[in-house]
């Protein structure tokens, strides 16, 4: 029994750090978009700072997981739980990087008039923030349904991505002098879409932790669905 008590308490530490990492990522995405929309350079700087914290949390969680693997030799559900955490933090860390990249553009775009039809970008941000939250929540609560729901949310993100892209193409055609700014917005559009994909990856690792089967493996062999 004492073995499990130690394992559970170490895993609890991983959970706590994951939740913390998730919080920082949520506000990083929120802030980078706000910085972009409101041309707020100070807010963009805050995103850089949270990125440093996110990176540190990734290393801390990674260290805890490796320690659990080495000291506790977890098997079965425990093993999957720890491996899933190890995989998830890579996606979380990448999401943090993408928020930072968006903050970069927010700084570069500073001043000047905003491109029209921008309302879709904050809309995407709202969805991906919820996706990241749901991914981590699904892991902590072992909630299979929530983990699987990320796929549907991602479809919405992809849809918005296409709308924004079409808008930007139309804009470049109409106002060629705005092409440079439009391309930067296109990059932001792409980063948000990638964040959605990373959140989907997280959901898949949660599904693996819970069921023992990684959904991508099945999908690939079954009908070649699944993106990328």
């Amino acid at each position, binding site marked *: *029994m004492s*073995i*499990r008590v130690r*394992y559970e308490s170490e895993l609890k530490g991983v959970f706590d750090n994951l939740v913390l990492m998730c919080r920082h990522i949520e506000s990083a995405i929120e802030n980078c978009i706000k910085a972009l929309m409101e041309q707020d350079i100070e807010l963009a700087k805050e995103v850089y700072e949270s990125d440093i914290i996110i990176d540190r949390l990734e290393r801390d969680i990674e260290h805890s997981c490796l320690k659990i693997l080495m000291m506790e*030799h*977890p*098997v*079965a*559900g*425990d*093993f*999957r739980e720890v491996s899933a955490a190890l995989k998830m933090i890579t996606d979380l860390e990448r999401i943090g990087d993408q928020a930072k990249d968006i903050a970069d553009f927010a700084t570069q775009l500073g001043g000047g008039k905003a491109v029209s039809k921008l309302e879709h970008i904050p809309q995407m941000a709202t969805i991906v923030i919820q996706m990241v939250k749901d991914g981590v929540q699904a892991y902590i609560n072992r909630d299979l349904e929530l983990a699987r729901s990320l796929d549907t949310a991602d479809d919405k993100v992809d849809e918005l991505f296409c709308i924004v892209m079409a808008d930007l193409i139309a804009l470049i055609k109409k106002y060629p002098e705005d092409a440079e700014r439009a391309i930067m917005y296109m990059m932001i559009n792409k980063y948000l879409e990638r964040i959605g994909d990373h959140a989907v990856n997280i959901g898949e690792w949660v599904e693996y932790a819970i069921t*023992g*089967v990684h959904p991508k493996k099945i999908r690939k062999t079954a009908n070649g669905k699944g993106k990328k």
Partner: protein
Amino acid sequence: MTKYSLSSVNLWYHDFQALTDVNIDIDNNEVTAFIGPSGCGKSTLIKSLNRMNDLIEGCRITGEFLLDGEDIYGNIDVNMLRKRVGMVFQKPNPFPMSIYDNVAFGPRTHGIKNRTELDEIVEKSLRDAAIWDECRDRLRKSALSLSGGQQQRLCIARALSVAPEVLLMDEPTSALDPISTGKIEDLINELKREYTIVIVTHNMQQATRISDKTAFFLLGEIIEVGRTEELFTNPKNEKTENYITGRFG
């Protein structure tokens, strides 16, 4: 290929039922591990694979034990069976004679008298058991002068000397240090190319390291049997999960 095929096996020691409706296939050139809490019948089942239980009074067995399709509890020569199916026990049990004689013992019993032939068998068995280099210069010394880990490998050499097809090992490394354990695990990995190996172990890491298939026992029943990687990452039965993750026992 299937080496052993057991179906509906039941075993009693007097009126105590130690195995209940055991069904399992054991494949050639693979390592099959038996795991489970103390007293669940692992040793009982492994011993029944070469009829070591015959010696125990009050022991009664029913069901089918096919070895290469032939029932080992049917009309067969038990000595022949023991030659085909060797056994290594938890505690090394070398005979109180020289290292050489320990290994030559089996072949001699089976009628090999020719000196050069015996020399060859002794050397090959000791090499296969990864202990040749440590004892080539002291073959005439008493086997009891070897360390515990060396004695265990000597016992493996002794089991190999009669060219068995199957090697049964009941907790072969439980009394050994990590280095000797590592040597024996490497050895098992080597040996499976030629033999069918069944091992009882209480060490979960050992089971995951060396076995291809794992059977989980509980109170005389096989609760789950499957590919080792699958059983340890995604067990189908909750009792298996609870046991291997240390939730009980």
